[in-house]
């Protein structure tokens, strides 16, 4: 079984790795690159804790092969903050208490930051639909929705 030399741009930095075909993107990020902000939750493409942006699209990184990301741009939760300033969704989750245990939060942040790129003024329903592939067992989603609304306003 041949290994593959891959090169990805992760949070703006070019990183190279030699990977087995079967290595999952989430493990490339967490283990090869030692960036543990991206979480493994269910590991069965249900919970969304592992959500990252792959060429700008939010995807579940437990269900993409690392080798498939070769040549692609990846953004993880570590890449949301710019120059010491939190992204609007990060600020929103802080201000509106959008988390309790925090396990789902990296995925929530990646999904909602992508939503706000596409839709500057999402309705409550659109926010709820956008995060329907990200499970939170603590908050009941109410404060997550408020956090995204806060971020949307901030970004407009």
């Amino acid at each position, binding site marked *: 079984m041949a290994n*593959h030399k891959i090169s990805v741009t992760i949070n703006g930095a070019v990183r190279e790795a030699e990977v*087995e*075909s079967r290595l999952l993107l989430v493990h490339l990020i967490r283990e090869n690159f030692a960036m543990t902000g991206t979480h493994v939750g269910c590991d*069965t*493409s249900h919970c*969304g804790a592992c959500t990252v942006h792959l060429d700008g699209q939010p*995807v579940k990184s437990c*269900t993409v092969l690392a080798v498939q990301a070769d040549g692609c741009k990846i953004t993880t939760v570590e890449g949301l903050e710019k120059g010491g300033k939190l992204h609007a969704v990060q600020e929103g989750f802080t201000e509106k208490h959008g988390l309790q245990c925090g396990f789902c939060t990296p995925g929530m942040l990646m999904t909602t930051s992508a939503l706000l790129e596409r839709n500057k003024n999402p309705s409550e329903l659109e926010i709820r*639909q956008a995060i*329907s592939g990200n499970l939170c067992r603590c908050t009941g989603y109410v404060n997550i929705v408020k956090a995204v609304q806060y971020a949307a306003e901030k970004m407009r």
Partner: protein
Amino acid sequence: MIPAAFDYHRPDTLDEALKLLKKHGDEAKVLSGGMSLLPMLKLRLASFAHLVDINRVPGLDYIKEEKGTLRIGAMTRQATLERSDLIKSKYPILADAVPLIADPLVRNRGTIGGNVANGDPGNDQPAIMIALGATFVAQGSKERSIAANQFYKGLYDTALARNEILTEVRIPVPPAKSGGAYAKLKRKTGDFAVAAAAVQLTLNAKGTVERCGIALTNAGLTPVEAGDAMKFLTGKTPDEKTIMEAAKLAAAKSSPSADRRGSVEYKKEMARVLTARALKKAVARAGQS
């Protein structure tokens, strides 16, 4: 969970992909969006020595109408279909269904080609394609087209040969006075349907049914074409009583199995209810088009 070891291939052209399939035969599997295949490999419900990734094969991602046919490239993502104005305005059966497939993150990867080619009776688009009278284009040593209602042979078993790749879905552009609808019951986002019904019909000038297609999702080992209901409806005025009778005939064709989504009786009853709902919506839409 880690899949069993395999070799990954990323061809740049369709020819190269077909050569790889020919070379590796039964040991090779096409990787499209990977939203069904990768979980199955991770759970070790399936294993293949070779994966042929067609994500970078150019020219398989498009939605266009040409000479009376809607052509959708196999690598078109569900998210692309969901945002397509053409689909939203002219193909309500797909506009109903796509936002109900898996979840938004999965729809960013999952493709229409994978959904129809995988042969999972829980997938939504196979029944929709049967209702629409669609055909699938398969590329192998030569190109051939296979009618959607002839494509599904059994659980994960389709008419697609090992050395073929499904490259395009072809849907006849619906004539005037056509309407379609997809009604699906699911327990939660990300789950497969408890039951779902796909309906596409055309009315004639007198308001009677000129043509109709009805098919059910998760109602057996393959998508179920409700032939009796289709025959019954054709030529009739689709009033309440006729629709209820057609829905009963459709549900009689279903043979679901009991699981955590419900008993056989419950699922058959839901197939009836959902067929009736889809028929009513399709008739209303046909009246407006």
